């Protein structure tokens, strides 16, 4: 389907990202609950989500602050978990790098796993989109996500400690990430990247301050890139 106007690109983004609503609500609620359990008041909890908007990094920071880790370690670890945002930023650049600066700044603020996944899938599928359509699509993607992130952090904070552990909300995060990854396994290189990254993450679990995650991510990216090169070379040889 060709997106012809910026308005329809916005609407398409909104529709494509709508399923993530069911992801955002439990995550942000969970953060609100855990933050108030850790002793933050409602305003502090909400401010955390509005200023940072990064689930995994927020959970990491919260965990380490509860353990009274040094502030520098708290920041470094949470930012390490968020280093993937720099990689997202880099991979979005070829698609939206030509947009006006204020739009890029706004897009940066709302770049999260869901908006990134959503936008990249669309940009790869329809390489002919104009910059304006791409930005409209991107902002369409974040429209159902970000306001709910704020709202349900607030709901979680207000619910506070009333939700029992037996609800196992802790596992909402891994299940969601797995569900998000699965449709991305388009080529052997994607699968190799995921497998190598998973194994490397387990092997580097002992590396302090979440740096194992970064190492594992890099290992997966290198494995994916090398597999892509190998497959290309083999196709070239078969063709000649």
């Amino acid at each position, binding site marked *: 389907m060709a997106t012809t106007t910026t308005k329809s690109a916005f609407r398409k983004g909104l529709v494509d990202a709508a399923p993530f609503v069911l992801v955002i609500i439990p995550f942000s609620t969970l953060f609100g609950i855990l933050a108030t359990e850790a002793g933050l008041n409602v305003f502090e909890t909400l401010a955390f989500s509005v*200023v*940072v908007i990064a689930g995994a990094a927020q959970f990491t920071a919260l965990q380490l602050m509860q353990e009274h880790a040094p502030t520098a370690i*708290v920041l470094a670890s949470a*930012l390490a978990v968020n280093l993937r945002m720099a990689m997202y930023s880099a991979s979005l650049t070829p698609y939206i790098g030509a947009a006006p600066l204020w739009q890029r700044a706004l897009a940066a603020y709302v770049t999260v796993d869901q908006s990134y996944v959503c936008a990249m899938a669309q940009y790869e599928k329809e390489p002919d989109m104009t910059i304006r359509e791409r930005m409209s699509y991107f902002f369409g993607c974040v429209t159902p996500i970000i306001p709910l992130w704020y709202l349900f952090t607030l709901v979680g904070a207000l619910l506070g400690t009333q939700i029992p552990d037996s609800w196992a909300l802790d596992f909402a995060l891994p*299940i969601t990430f797995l569900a998000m*990854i699965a449709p991305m396994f388009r080529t052997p290189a994607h699968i190799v990247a995921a497998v190598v990254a*998973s194994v490397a993450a387990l092997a580097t679990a002992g590396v302090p301050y979440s740096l194992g995650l970064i190492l594992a991510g890099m290992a997966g990216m290198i494995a994916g890139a090398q597999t892509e090169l190998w497959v290309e070379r083999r196709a070239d040889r078969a063709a000649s």
Partner: protein
Amino acid sequence: MIDKGTLWFVIIGLGIGSFGLRFVFTGLVGDREMPAWLLRHLRYTAVAILPALVAPQVLAPAATGGQFDPARFTAAIVALAVGVITKNVLLAIISGAATLYGLLWLLG
């Protein structure tokens, strides 16, 4: 109890840092051409980082104190399998959640 000064320092520091990470390439590189080798690696960012984030949680969940948990492990496998087969994110999440609750209930 978390110290209030530390808390606000972390919130603001993490906010600025996270924005910096998100803005570093789109903002500063802009529409300048990036080398092919870099783009080739960036294609595999999401598909590498997210599994790396999840794998330790699947095998050693924090909620069970790092002990392997059959319910959480099976739920993860089901979510991944349904996602691969159907390409439907929402269906994969629902299948995984249903498996998790079903097994937690069965295994008590």
